[in-house]
């Protein structure tokens, strides 16, 4: 299903003057920028986040190309991992921009971790524009094998 813009229903009138007014309104709508008012939504950067799990760890990965390590912040608070930061793109001096598709500015993403993690053992690495955070699971959250002796 596609989401289409709400259209004012055209009243069943044959008054040509009103038709003309409707037409004018339609035209005005046409020239309204669809970004207007919602520009905020287009101005934010939400880097792609992945979550992986193995027996002992959770891995959170974020695509953050072209950052400086020191501009990335990773914090853990009550089972929620927060990745935030700011990417500063250099303003080329005396240059004319032909395309500006890359995002410049602040971003923030959070991940609610499924179980408790050993917060003091969390590590992060940044390679090829990808941040990988390794979060070892807390001992109590790890699956335990219980031996049952069958008589």
């Amino acid at each position, binding site marked *: 299903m596609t989401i289409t813009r709400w259209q004012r229903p055209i009243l069943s009138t044959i008054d040509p003057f009103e038709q003309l007014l409707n037409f004018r309104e339609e035209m005005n709508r046409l020239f309204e920028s669809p970004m207007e008012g919602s520009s905020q939504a287009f101005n934010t950067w939400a880097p*792609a*986040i*992945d*979550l*992986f*799990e*193995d027996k002992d*760890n959770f*891995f959170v*990965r974020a*695509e*953050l*190309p*072209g*950052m400086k390590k020191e501009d990335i912040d990773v914090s853990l608070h009550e089972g929620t991992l927060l990745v935030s930061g700011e990417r500063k*793109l250099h303003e*080329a*001096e*005396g*240059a*004319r*921009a*032909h*395309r*500006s*598709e*890359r*995002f410049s500015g602040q971003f923030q993403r959070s991940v609610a971790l*499924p179980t408790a993690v050993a917060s003091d053992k969390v590590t992060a690495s*940044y*390679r*090829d*524009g*990808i941040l*990988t955070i390794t979060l070892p699971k807390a001992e109590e959250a790890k699956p335990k094998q219980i031996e049952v002796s069958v008589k």
Partner: protein
Amino acid sequence: MEEIMNAVAQQEKQMGNVSRINFVSPEVDIYENKDGYILEAEMPGVNKEGLEVTLEGNEITIIGHRQPEALKAETMYRESRMADYRRVFEIDPAIDSKKISAKMEQGVLTLVLPKTEQVKPRKISVAD
């Protein structure tokens, strides 16, 4: 001078032939200064080894192969795409194709496309 930018139509044509599903189009910034053009393309997960930049006629093709999955873990949630990157640009004839250089740093490709000496603006001093 706009030629490097006339890429959109070109790109669409190119992408039409190749399956769209297999590639993602990297986001780019393109600047022009008196010496030439600078193109920066975002390709997280790609390093020097996975990069292919080819020049054919007046078209430059950028392909970035992602590093193979290193994590031996189960995916719980995924937003990133696994597809490789590809984008084609038509280049300005003023570009000196022999002098194009590429650099890959933290998932960002920087292409420097210098203009030939002949087209660079020159300052001509006026004799008294």
